[in-house]
């Protein structure tokens, strides 16, 4: 299961399950108090005026506009796609969002509504959100998404296997999904959902991050949004450290996507500050950092209006989705 282009110590880690375990358990432990303190400290940074407007526009362009409900309809997906194309119809200069994120069976509707716009269509797959199914079913799920035209696939890892220490199985599964994303000439990006709310410790988050990066995930994503706690700042810090360290050792840029629980502009800006300070300014782009969110976009639009109009706006000035 080795990947050829990695430096020796990393390719050695992927040789077999034993060396993978040795590598993951050899990662330095996370200083819980330290990371929480640093996250809280960076969260107090004040971003105002021009910088705030820049941050709002950047955040809008990083949103994966998400609807993952059992009650999703084709009409709702089309409405969401319309909102993605033109988030604030009164202000055509508002940036477009990065992607629309839906369930696999609704991908074709989203693709139809977004063709030619440059907005991606992301699909959750692999028995989302629990990931409790056979590998065969999971891969079929992925095939459904990519064959319908999804440009990004959000997979969930098998948390049960990870917590039992069967790292090889998790690794193989990510690789298999990665291959399925590239099957039949498709070029879908792979986002690996760690579901940090179920991983219990920061050490586990760091191990799962490295495991996903080693197996070829283009993005590591915090959560499904179906489990509480979802994305938190300290967890995102740990994951940003992982992609930065990955860049240092391989020269390759991988992305991070916090998802779930980010509801307002203030939170989003705190995340952007963390990206800048922990990973680096080159990560402040939609190709390397995303927000998985549904209600966040409306708050960003309201704050954008407040900044530009000079007075407060209200929820009835943006679309309900």
């Amino acid at each position, binding site marked *: 299961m080795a990947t050829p282009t990695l430096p020796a110590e990393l390719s050695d880690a992927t040789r077999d399950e034993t060396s993978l375990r040795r590598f993951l358990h050899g990662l330095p432990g996370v200083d819980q108090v330290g990371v929480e303190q640093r996250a809280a400290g960076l969260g107090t940074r004040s971003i105002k005026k021009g910088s705030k407007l820049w941050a709002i526009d950047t955040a809008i362009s990083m949103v994966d506009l998400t609807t993952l409900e059992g009650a999703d309809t084709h009409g709702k997906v089309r409405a969401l796609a319309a909102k993605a194309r033109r988030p604030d119809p009164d202000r055509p200069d508002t940036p477009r969002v990065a992607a629309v994120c839906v369930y696999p069976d609704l991908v074709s509707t989203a693709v139809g509504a977004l063709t030619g716009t440059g907005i991606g269509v992301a699909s959750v797959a692999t028995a989302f959100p629990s990931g409790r199914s056979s590998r065969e079913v999971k891969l079929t799920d992925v095939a459904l998404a990519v064959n319908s035209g999804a440009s990004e696939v959000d997979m969930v890892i098998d948390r049960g296997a990870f917590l039992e220490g069967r790292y090889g199985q998790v690794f193989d599964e990510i690789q298999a999904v990665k291959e399925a994303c590239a099957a039949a000439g498709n070029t879908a990006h792979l986002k690996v959902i760690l579901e940090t709310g179920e991983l219990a410790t920061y050490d586990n988050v760091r191990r799962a991050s490295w495991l996903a990066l080693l197996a070829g995930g283009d993005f590591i994503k915090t959560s499904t949004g179906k489990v509480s706690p979802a994305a938190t700042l300290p967890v995102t810090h740990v994951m940003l450290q992982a992609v930065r360290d990955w860049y240092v050792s391989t020269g390759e840029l991988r992305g991070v996507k916090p998802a779930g629980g980010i509801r307002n502009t203030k939170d989003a800006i705190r995340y952007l500050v963390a990206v800048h300070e922990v990973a680096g300014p080159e990560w402040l782009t939609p190709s390397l950092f995303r927000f998985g969110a549904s209600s966040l976009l409306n708050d960003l639009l309201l704050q954008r*209006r407040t900044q530009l109009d*000079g*007075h*407060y*706006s*209200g*929820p*009835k*000035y943006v679309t309900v989705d």
Partner: protein
Amino acid sequence: MSDNRISVAKTYKLYVDGKFPRSESGRTYPVTDSKGAFLANASHASRKDVRDAVVAARKAFGGWSGATAYNRGQVLYRVAEVLEGRREQFAAEVAASEGLPARKAQSVVDAAVDRWVWYAGWTDKIATVLGAANPVAGPYFSFTVPEPTGVVGVLAPQESSLLGLVSVVAPVLATGCTAVVVSSADRPLPAITLSEVLATSDVPAGVVNVLTGKASELGPWLASHGDVNALDPTGAGPLGRVEIAREAAGTVKRVLAVPEDEPDWTRRPDIARLRRYLEPKTVWHPQGV
């Protein structure tokens, strides 16, 4: 206890969303009595407190406007009961703030409680007075029903710190609207005590939000706010009202026409204020058989 005990001076906070937060700005200002002696510290609200208060008022609007008129009346009667229980405290604060003799202050408080009860009684009657079954030429019923306007910004009177305050806040609540109130800047203590009364009676969180601070600073933010539906500029003063009217024009708010100087609040009110916070809705319905 000896007489030379040092009294504990209070630093009061705002009343937003059923809680008592400090001002986002962290500012406070000293409140003095009519002769300039120190009474307490009050929070000096900023525009961000206005923003938070409007969000709270909007959140509370659905529940409060959707409650039955009878229920709203019961809640307001309950407020009057708790007001009555705090008569001594209110009388002392009114006396200190407005420089009134004790007996006069007591009668002001009594008038305020009576005013509250008067508006509480109107909750389930106003629809009958302002609504109508319209005569139309056709096989239809046509009804006009008054519906609450929404979130109301209230710049409370600067002079009359309790009776004036009650006279402008109670009609907002009686119609089913929710309120963001900016209290008198120099005489905020009765407003603060009123917010303690509201917090301990049955009024849902966010239905009334009380900010202490300068009407000249907060008024324009309330007036230009896109999510405020009506505005009572009583406490803004003649000059401030011009600016407020201009700021409010962008969102076509209902701005109350108020007299230049503060009216005599002891005079019996009419339903003009209730009418201003209600929008008529007319529905046509086929008569059927």
